[in-house]
């Protein structure tokens, strides 16, 4: 199940969707996009969660300065060079312009404008006070209206409840993947595939979990356990392999691709009592306290989350746990707070490697050296 086969399978999957009249809505792979609403409207939500390389980054420089985050650069590069394996991007009908970060806005806007993909706007407030929650609902209503206008069909509450339940169930299963004791690279591949395909992948996911439980693999005792936070490892990025090559194993992905996504489950009692399903999406936004978009408490929440996991893990497993904070170069959110995150966690006795990089291949050697040095230090 390598990245190439994942991408070609995805291509077939999306073609089939299109053949069935399903419209595809793409967006940058972060947070807070109401995929349940897209699903209820009959659209397929496609996350742009593909890593880059030198060529893709270079190809973006006609549009953005090189001091833009490597992921954003690569998203533009994908559109401007359209490598064969990514030809499925031609199938995208709409692109969501959202403000997870300002690069998200710029990239989505450029893709929409220069590659002629109609845009759908969805902006997210930065804080979580009452007004912000009400504002979030306004955005949901706007998007709903827009989707209904496109399809000419009302998105009924019933449909939306159905989608919410579907995604909820999917995430519950996904959560279990994060807990499996398997090699990090293997886990990541499953998470990536699941998040690309969405709830339709659930039966496969369940089978996979079942299989792993019945056939537990023996992880190398000598490998170092890692909690991976910060920016995600996207499809086609070999960072996880470098970590494993250096002697580490990611046991927990605390990133957009990983527990950050799968932990955003709306509780059942709210689903049962809430009359307006949009309010459930507002609730999901409100409860998303670990999201890096939000100010002013992201740092505290993140520190608390990592500390809790760390304490629990080291106590129950009796093993050391390292933390790698992955910073895609020029990432506003993760980079700006990285030194504070490291400092706070180190005060609590948790050692952190702030691993900053772009997608240039030339950096691999240096990255590996840094990873190895960190893992050695864990001994």
């Amino acid at each position: 199940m390598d990245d190439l086969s994942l991408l070609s399978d995805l291509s077939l999957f999306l073609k089939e969707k299109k053949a069935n009249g399903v419209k595809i809505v793409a967006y940058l792979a972060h947070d807070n996009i109401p995929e349940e609403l897209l699903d209820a409207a009959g659209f397929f939500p496609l996350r742009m969660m593909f890593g880059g390389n030198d060529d893709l980054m270079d190809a973006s420089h006609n549009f953005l300065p090189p001091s833009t985050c490597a992921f954003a650069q690569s998203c533009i590069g994908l559109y401007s060079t359209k490598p064969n394996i990514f030809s499925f991007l031609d199938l995208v009908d709409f692109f969501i312009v959202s403000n997870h970060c300002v690069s998200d806005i710029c990239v989505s806007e450029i893709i929409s404008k220069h590659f002629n993909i109609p845009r759908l706007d969805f902006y997210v407030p930065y804080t979580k006070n009452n007004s912000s929650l009400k504002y979030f609902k306004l955005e949901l209503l706007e998007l709903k209206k827009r989707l209904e206008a496109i399809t000419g069909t009302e998105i009924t509450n019933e449909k939306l409840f159905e989608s919410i339940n579907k995604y909820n169930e999917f995430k519950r299963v996904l959560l279990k993947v994060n807990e499996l004791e398997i090699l990090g690279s293997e886990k990541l591949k499953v998470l990536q595939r699941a998040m690309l395909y969405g709830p339709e992948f659930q039966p496969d996911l369940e089978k996979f979990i079942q299989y792993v439980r019945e056939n537990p693999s023996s992880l190398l005792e000598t490998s170092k356990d890692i909690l991976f936070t910060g920016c995600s490892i996207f499809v086609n990025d070999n960072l996880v392999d470098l970590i494993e090559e250096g002697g580490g194993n990611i046991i927990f992905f605390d990133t957009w691709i990983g527990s950050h996504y799968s932990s955003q489950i709306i509780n059942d009692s709210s689903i049962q009592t809430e009359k307006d399903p949009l309010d459930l999406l507002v609730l999901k936004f409100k409860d998303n306290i670990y999201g890096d978009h939000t100010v002013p408490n992201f740092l505290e929440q993140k520190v608390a989350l990592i500390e809790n996991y760390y304490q629990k893990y080291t106590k129950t497993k009796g093993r050391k746990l390292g933390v790698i904070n992955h910073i895609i170069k020029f990432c506003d959110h993760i980079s700006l707070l990285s030194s504070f995150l490291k400092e706070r966690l180190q005060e609590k006795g948790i050692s952190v490697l702030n691993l900053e990089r772009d997608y240039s291949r030339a950096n691999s050697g240096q990255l590996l050296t840094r990873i190895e040095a960190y893992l050695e230090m864990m001994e």
Partner: protein
Amino acid sequence: MSLIADEIIQFSSVLRMAYNLLTGRNYLKRKKFREKEKLVAVTLPFSDLAFAAGTIPVFPIRMHQFEISQYLTYLGSASSIFGWNTVSNFLGFIRNLGINEISKIVDDIIEDVIDVINKKYNEMYDIGIENGISSDFCYGLKSLVGMHVTKGSNVDACLNVTIRCSAYNKYLESLKAINKGPKQIWVDIPPRNIGNAIELLTNNVSNAIKEFENLTGKTITDNQIRDHFKIGNQVKRAYKNIIYEISASDFYPCNPATFSEIMALLSISFQDYNSNAPRYRDNIMALEREMRERIRKGIGMDVADRPRIFVTPMFGGWEPKSHEIIYELGGRALYADWELLRMLEEIPTSSHSNPAEEYARFLMNATETGIGCDNDKLTDSYLRMARDLNADGLIFFQLFGCHSISNCYTMLREKVRRELEIPTTAITFNKIGENVEQVKTRLGAFMEMFR
């Protein structure tokens, strides 16, 4: 520099503003310790609520001690005895006699004002990096972190207004990690004006006002807020007049390099009104008057044959030598960032209005039609401004590490070519003074187009 110094001395209002900007530390110390006032850190021109609450807003760099010449200190003391006008006239008179020593001293004043500020900015930049902000961020943020690391613990609160720039918003979040003491007062501006967004923003403004009340222990009345808005409106009116009626005109009250220098000073000081709104209002209104008076008397310079070069953005960091270089190359540099971002709009103050709501409208207007929630809107703002200034060319400072404003240049270039048909170029910027030679070369090539 002497040419600039020579001219600037004619405006006593500029001297006052410069003096107030540089001697903020003493003023703020007095306010904090003797008068027990609350200091509130502000950035960008978001000081209104802090003023309305009766606190003292401060752009944090002003808490630093600046190496100002003894001469300026002397000027300050002399002015408090004889009044600024007398001091200014006296200097002008001596200058006209051609006494070299004096003109050297006059040069020093200007160095105090611009170079000293810039030196301090660069110092803050280095401190910012030393204290953990990655060098990958923009000049403005690195310097701001430096300011808060060095002086942030002196303030009682930080007024944090979210904008579309995610790095800026995260920097705001980092303030409480830099200094635990100050209270953090937030105003979150909804990204778009949809539905009842104004009402929601009004609630956020009202909550911030409550936070200010908690900070000071005093009630803030609507009239108090309106009174400050009235002062702010006067400031903005004078600022706008200077931009539109003077900087865009063909006769300047001084040489264009001096004029740009004054505009740069306004741009920096407009963020916190040098911590005293009525005083700043008086100065900027006097400045407008002084300029008009000189123009009326025919004192100044005919600039009709000099192309108008709109230089922007400058507020997040720019090379301050640019206007001098442009001047030497036969042009004139126009600065108008705050107007471009719609920060110079007046706020209605009628007695039946709700000031929190009016302020919310002002913020929303700046967000929607100034900075814009996307680059399409932001680039429209640049176009509008260039058109309104009747600009002949546009120089865009592309800040290293700025992912918000700098990223719009490709789109802006296309729009400028298509809609304005004026030359435009981007100059990359990282740190003040770092690339002056390159800036010179770029500007030289650019200005060739006007020959």
